């Protein structure tokens, strides 16, 4: 007499029979589908990246709130400049504007001290504010009369700044062309002296 078969033996036999004949295995809805993505690896790499991006965003927001010149403010000011250039100069001059170029000293990561936010005045190209220039210099003295050589008697030199007398009582200008111009301007005639020798030196005239 044979021992009665147990249920486990029956299941095992049925499983074995099923495994021997896979086509005969019915599909199970609870059995997971094998995937090609290794989700643990993905999680291990994505989490640090997300964390890094979150830190950066937090810092940017913090600098914006503290009133410093961050990259976001620079982007915003650049947009403002682009918008303002399309408007009339008068409209651009009236409203306050922010500087288009960020300060080279500011860095997006460096913590900026908290300062009061002041609207910067937009300066149009070609408009330069200079202090008033006072002309304190006296008019230039042109053609100072040379000092009389020693031992040469001559009257007091009262020639104008552009004339010389060379020991005479006549005011001589530098050239005939200048004399012609002066005569025309002052409604005078022209006197030209042709000499042998150097008129400037008494021993040569």
């Amino acid at each position, binding site marked *: 007499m044979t021992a009665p078969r147990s249920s486990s033996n029956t299941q095992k036999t049925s499983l074995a029979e099923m495994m021997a004949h896979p086509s005969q295995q019915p599909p199970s809805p609870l059995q997971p589908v094998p995937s090609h993505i290794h989700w643990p690896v993905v999680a291990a790499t994505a989490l640090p990246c997300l964390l890094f991006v979150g830190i950066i965003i937090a810092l940017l927001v913090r600098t914006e709130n503290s009133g410093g010149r961050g990259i976001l403010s620079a982007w915003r000011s650049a947009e403002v400049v682009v918008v303002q250039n399309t408007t009339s100069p008068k409209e651009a001059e009236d409203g306050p504007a922010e500087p288009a170029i960020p300060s080279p000293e500011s860095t997006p990561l460096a913590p900026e001290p908290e300062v009061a936010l002041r609207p910067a005045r937009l300066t149009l190209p070609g408009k330069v504010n200079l202090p008033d220039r006072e002309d304190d210099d006296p008019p230039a003295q042109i053609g100072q009369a040379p000092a009389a050589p020693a031992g040469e008697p001559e009257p007091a030199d009262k020639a104008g700044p552009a004339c010389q007398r060379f020991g005479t009582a006549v005011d001589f200008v530098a050239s005939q062309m200048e004399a*012609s111009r002066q005569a025309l301007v002052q409604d005078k005639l*022209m006197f030209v002296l042709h000499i*042998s020798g150097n008129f400037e030196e008494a021993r040569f005239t």
Partner: protein
Amino acid sequence: MGALAQPSVGRYLNDHFAAAYQKVGTFRIMPNGQKMGGNVASYFCLPNGRVLHVVAGPVDADVFLREARWAVDLSRLAQAETKGNAARFTAFIRDAHAERLRVEHNNNVPSRTVINLVSARGPARAAALALAANPLQARVHSLMIQKPKALIDQIYKEVFEKVLGERVSTLPVIK
């Protein structure tokens, strides 16, 4: 430069003229310090350089002042008489020099005859050449009769070389 150093001459020239100078010749300084050669010519011109009168050679202050005043009066009278007419202005200048040549240099040649000498040949030409023997100012008046509307650049060589007997030179003073 004795005449130009006089205050009266300087005052008159400064009031009525714009003065300039130009070296056109040279001279030699001898070992004993004496100057050999050299001369001076004074031109009274309109602002555009047209010559009204010339004083050739060194003169004293009175003569120089008289010639300067004559040039100023001649210019004013010519402008008043001719009223901007260039041909009449030229004729006026020429007649003025002819009158001075006749009166001051005892030349009895009438004005019309003097004018004919400009384009004359033969005996008239000889008469014109005879004037060249007269003193310097007579030569100047004769030159102004022949060229009454010349610019200073056109006659300065003739004044310096033919009237004064010098040579136009750019050489420095020779010691």
